[in-house]
């Protein structure tokens, strides 16, 4: 889940898609890469995060191990949101999380500095998350959703390298759709750089070129009038597919009274929300995502 523009609903969608997939019987892992830790505190209370997770159970622990021979397994960082266990029990699905650390911003800078000092660590840094997710403990998951911070820093690049599909939540307005172009350029530029460097990789290490990651845009914070997006938003919604960018058909509406309180209760709207129509459109989005995921080769 990526967009280097902030405030577009990435975290809300990650939480709801994750919970919605779990409710369909999927085994889901969420990874919070945003130092604001909004995804983490959507499932854990601030006190639980500070007391139980920050000392040693955040994704920072995994990135701290870059370049070290022995370190933690990423599986040791997995936690189970307590308030969802009972809700998801009848579904056969599960939702687990690797929490964010508030110092992830510093991790981003340290990783960039590591590469400046020692460019030979390019692949060790960029593939850090992909390597972690290839551990045997992670083969049990059906879906891993990674919530990126609103930038295209080192952590976001590791997320792109580890992903099969980039879901880009976007508001239907000028700045957000302009941000899509900027994101497309950054991802493509980075992919090209990765593949260029493959030629200089150490002998004996075989790596395949990185294919351009498929992207799909989901429009969030949509305002409807008579069941249709208002004209000012409709124009932006209809322009994006014309640029060749795939989009989800489902539009996610704006409603602060529905989405605002959910994180405080630790249960996403899709599992316990009050707005029935909002739950319905979130479920439709889950269905669309499942169809796209099924098309991705295992």
């Amino acid at each position: 889940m990526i967009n280097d523009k902030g405030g577009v609903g990435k975290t809300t969608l990650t939480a709801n898609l994750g919970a919605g997939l779990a409710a369909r019987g999927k085994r889901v892992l969420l990874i919070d890469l945003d130092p604001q830790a909004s995804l983490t505190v959507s499932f854990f209370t601030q006190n639980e995060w500070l007391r139980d997770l920050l000392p040693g159970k955040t994704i920072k622990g995994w990135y701290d191990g870059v370049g070290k021979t022995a370190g933690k397994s990423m599986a040791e960082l997995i936690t189970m949101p307590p308030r969802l266990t009972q809700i998801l029990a009848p579904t056969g699905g599960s939702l687990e999380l690797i929490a964010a650390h508030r110092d992830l911003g510093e991790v981003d800078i340290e990783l960039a500095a590591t590469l400046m000092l020692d460019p030979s660590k390019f692949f060790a840094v960029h593939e850090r998350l992909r390597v972690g997710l290839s551990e045997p403990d992670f083969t049990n998951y059906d879906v891993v959703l990674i919530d990126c911070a609103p930038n295209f820093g080192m952590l976001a690049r590791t997320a792109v390298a580890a992903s099969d599909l980039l879901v880009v939540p976007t508001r239907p307005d000028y700045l957000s759709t302009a941000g899509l172009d900027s994101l497309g350029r950054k991802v493509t530029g980075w992919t090209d750089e990765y593949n260029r460097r493959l030629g200089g990789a150490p002998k004996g290490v075989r790596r395949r070129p990185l294919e351009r990651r498929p992207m799909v845009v989901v429009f969030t914070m949509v305002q409807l009038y008579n069941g249709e997006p208002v004209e000012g938003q409709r124009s932006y919604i209809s322009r994006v597919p014309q640029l060749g960018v795939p989009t989800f058909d489902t539009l996610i509406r704006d409603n602060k009274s529905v989405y605002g309180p959910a994180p405080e209760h630790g249960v996403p709207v899709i599992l316990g929300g009050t707005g029935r129509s909002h739950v319905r459109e979130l479920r439709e989005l889950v269905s669309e995502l499942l169809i796209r995921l099924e098309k991705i080769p295992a």
Partner: protein
Amino acid sequence: MTQPVEIASLVLKQVGTLLAKLTPDQLDGLLQSRGQLVYHEGDVIVPVRATRSSQGGTAGSRTKPPNAGVDIDAVVAAIRACATGAEVQAYLDSHNRELTVPTLRAVAKALGPTVVSSGNKPDLKRNIIAGTAGFRERSDAMSAGAWRT
């Protein structure tokens, strides 16, 4: 020689006389911009009734469609053929006279949902540019063709 102020005073007196002969409906039409006063060579000022088909006209009134003389499909095709926002701008400017606000609105609607079809004339022109070649041009510049497959 009659002074301009005196001429204006005489004209206003004539206009006042004319307005006094109009029906309340005709006066309302003028007030709501559904009708207009038109100058003809000669010595009379003739009121012409509503020209906005969407608001309807009174029976027997002289009406003309909002896009009279303008082939909307041809305008749409010409705009779609433009490769850049500047070309769209040049086209709209070169046909400024016939592209009235109602016509521009019809063109904006015919161009599809990428174009916002509300606003005054400058807004509509800007919307048509932004919703056609403008957004593609901007996107290509910003994304460096990242979305092209």
